[in-house]
C-alpha cells in the first residue's frame, strides 16, 4: 500500500496522467488507453474529453453516479460503440473495434453486471459455454471439469462441486466464476461493470479479493463502481465521471478515501440539494440540514473551487 499522503487532489488535470512506472515489464505501455475520447448520440453528448489508461497489473477505477457516462465508457472500451472523437489505443496502437468479439480477440473481456450465466446449468457448463472443449464431435467433459476446477482454484475459489447448478452459488461466487472464465479465455484486460452493486458487504469483499487476485496475475482491471469504499482499497487510479465529463483523474497517492467520497457525492450538488430541502421546510428541512452536515464533515463542499486543502 502506498503511504497515505495528505496532499490535496491536484484539481482537474485533463492531460493524460504521467506515465507512472509500470508495475511489471511491459515497457510501460498501457494495455488500454483513451485519449480525449468522447461520444455523441446525435445531439446528446454522452461522454466528453475522457482520458484514462490501465496497464498490466493495475486497477483503474471508474467512479460516477447514475447517468455519469460509465456505461457509455464501458461500451466504448468493450467494442460495442466507437468513440466519436479522440483515440482508443490498445497496447500502444490505435484501434477501432466494430464488435465486442474483436475487443475480446485483443484480450479485452467484459463481465457485465447482470452476469452472463445460465442459472440452471452446472458451473462447468457455464464456464465453457460458447467455448466448449471438444474431442471429435463430443465434448471432452472430464477435461473441462478439471480445467474449470483448477482455474477456479487458481483464483482462490474452492467450489464444492463444479457439477452443481451455478444458480446455487452466491452472487459473489457467481461473479467470480464469470471473472475467472474471462481470465481463462485469455483476457488481458477485465472490465467489471458494477460487480459489487447487488452484493452484500461480505460478498463484495469476496469480489474485491478476486479483483486483487486478477491484478496479481498481471491483468489490467477496469473496475466500474459508484461506491468509493469499494474502489479505494483496490484501485491504483481513479477516474471520476459526472454528467459525461471527467471531474478528476487521480493516482492513488494523490487522493484519500474521504476526498474520493466527497468528489463522488458531488459536493456542490449535494450542498445545493441540502439548501433546496431546507427551504422546503418541515421534515425535508431536517434531512437537508443533516445532508449539509455530512457535506461539511466530508470536507469537500466545493470541488470546483479546489479550496479543500483544509480537509483534515
Amino acid at each position: 500500500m502506498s503511504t497515505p499522503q495528505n496532499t490535496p487532489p491536484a484539481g482537474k488535470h485533463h492531460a493524460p496522467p504521467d506515465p507512472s512506472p509500470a508495475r511489471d515489464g511491459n515497457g510501460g505501455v498501457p494495455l488500454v488507453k483513451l485519449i480525449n475520447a468522447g461520444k455523441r448520440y446525435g445531439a446528446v453528448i454522452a461522454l466528453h474529453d475522457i482520458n484514462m489508461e490501465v496497464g498490466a497489473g493495475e486497477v483503474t477505477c471508474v467512479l460516477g453516479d447514475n447517468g455519469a457516462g460509465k456505461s457509455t465508457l464501458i461500451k466504448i472500451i468493450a467494442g460495442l460503440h466507437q468513440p466519436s472523437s479522440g483515440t482508443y489505443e490498445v497496447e500502444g496502437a490505435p484501434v477501432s473495434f466494430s464488435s465486442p468479439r474483436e475487443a475480446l480477440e485483443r484480450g479485452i473481456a467484459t463481465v457485465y453486471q447482470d452476469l452472463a450465466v445460465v442459472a440452471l446449468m452446472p458451473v462447468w457448463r457455464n464456464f465453457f459455454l460458447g467455448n466448449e472443449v471438444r474431442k471429435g464431435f463430443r465434448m471432452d467433459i472430464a477435461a473441462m471439469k478439471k480445467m474449470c476446477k483448477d482455474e477456479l482454484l487458481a483464483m482462490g475459489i474452492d467450489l464444492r462441486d463444479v457439477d452443481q447448478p451455478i444458480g446455487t452459488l452466491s452472487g459473489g461466487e457467481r461473479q467470480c466464476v464469470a471473472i475467472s472464465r474471462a481470465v481463462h479465455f485469455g483476457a488481458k484486460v477485465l472490465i467489471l461493470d458494477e460487480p459489487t452493486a447487488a452484493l452484500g458487504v461480505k460478498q463484495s469483499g469476496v469480489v474485491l479479493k478476486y479483483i486483487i487476485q486478477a491484478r496479481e496475475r498481471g491483468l489490467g482491471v477496469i473496475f466500474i463502481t459508484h461506491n468509493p469504499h469499494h474502489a479505494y482499497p483496490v484501485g491504483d487510479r481513479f477516474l471520476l465521471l459526472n454528467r459525461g465529463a471527467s471531474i478528476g483523474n487521480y493516482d492513488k497517492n494523490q487522493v484519500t478515501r474521504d476526498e474520493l467520497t466527497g468528489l463522488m457525492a458531488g459536493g456542490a450538488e449535494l450542498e445545493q440539494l441540502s439548501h433546496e430541502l431546507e427551504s422546503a421546510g418541515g421534515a425535508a428541512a431536517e434531512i437537508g440540514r443533516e445532508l449539509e452536515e455530512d457535506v461539511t464533515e466530508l470536507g469537500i463542499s466545493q470541488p470546483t473551487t479546489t479550496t479543500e486543502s483544509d480537509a483534515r
Partner: protein
Amino acid sequence: MTQTAEAPVAPPPRADERVGRKSPLARILARPEAGAIAGAIIIYIFFFIIAPPFRNASSFSSVLYVTSTYGLMATPIALLMIGGEFDLSAGVAVTSSALCASLFSYEFTTNAWVGVLVALALSLLIGFINGWLVIRTGIPSFLITLGMFFMLQGLNIALTQTITNQVSSPDISTLQGFNSAREVFSASWTIGGVNIRTSVVYWIVFVIIATYILLRTRIGNWIFSAGGNPVSARAVGVPVAKVKIGLFMAVGFMAWFTGMHTLFLFNTIQSGQGIGNEFVYIIAAVVGGCLLTGGYGSAVGAAIGALIFGMVNQGIVYAGWNPDWFQFFVGALLLGAILLNTYIRRRAEASI
C-alpha cells in the same frame, strides 16, 4: 464412473468434506426424469395388479407400440422445450407430412419415395418457418405455432377435399417403391411370439441420439443455455437463433418420420388426424421433467412420459374400463406429475 482407476496415485481424500451429505437417493432425485420414473413404476404396478391381460408380453409390446408413436414426437418436443420454445403445430404437422407424401406421389404417379422426400422438404420448411418467425418477431412460440396449427389443419382438410373429393388420402399401396418404404418406416418382426414394430426401435434409437446430443455435445450445451438464459448465451457467443430454428426443424424432421410411419402402416391418411396430439407430446415432455420455462429437462424423461401415457392408454382397455375415462386420467396424470416434479426439484435444490 470408472474414475477409481486413478486412486493409487491420488492424494488420499480428494472428496470435499462439504459434498459428503448428498445421498445416492438424493442424486437420483436430482435428475429431471426422477418423477417420471417413479410415476411409471407406480402405474405399471397398478395395471399389473388390476388388469390381468396387462401382464402378457404381447400386450406390453402393444403398449410399447402406442408409446413409440407418441414418443417419436415427444423426443424433439422435449428438446425444443428445453430450448425454451413450444410447438403446438406438431400434431397436425405429422398429418400434413403424410398427406403431402401420399397426395404428391399418387397425383403425379411417382415412386413412393419421391413423395417421401417432398414431404421431408415440406416438414423441414414448416419447422423452419415456425422457428424463423419466432426468432424474427420475438412473439412467443405459443402464439406463432398456434397460428401454424390452425393453418395446417385447414390446409390438411381443405386441400385433401379439393384434390381427392374425400376426407382421406387415396390408398398408395399400389405405387412403385411402396413396399421398400414400408420396410423402412413400418416393418415389424415377431420375436418369441411377440410382435415388435420398427417404430419402437426407432423411438429408442432417437431417444439415445437426443440424450447424447443433449449431454455430450456442445449443441446440447447450447440448447440448455438457449432455453435457460438466451441473452447470456448470446453474450458468450452461442448462436441462439440457429439453435432454436434448428430445434423447430428437428421437430419437423420427426413429424415427417412419424407421418411416414403412419402412412406406410395404413396406406392412407385421414385428413383430420393428429389434432390434439401436440398436447400429448407436451404432456409427455412435462411429465418427464421438462420445465415450461425452458433450460431444464431430459429426452429420457420425455420417453418415460410417453411410456406412462402409453401404459394408461392401453391399461384402461386391458382393465375393461370405459375408454371415455382416458382423458380424465391423462389430465390427472399431468397435474400429478407437475406437482411431483416441483416438489422433487425443490427438494433436490435444497439438498445440494
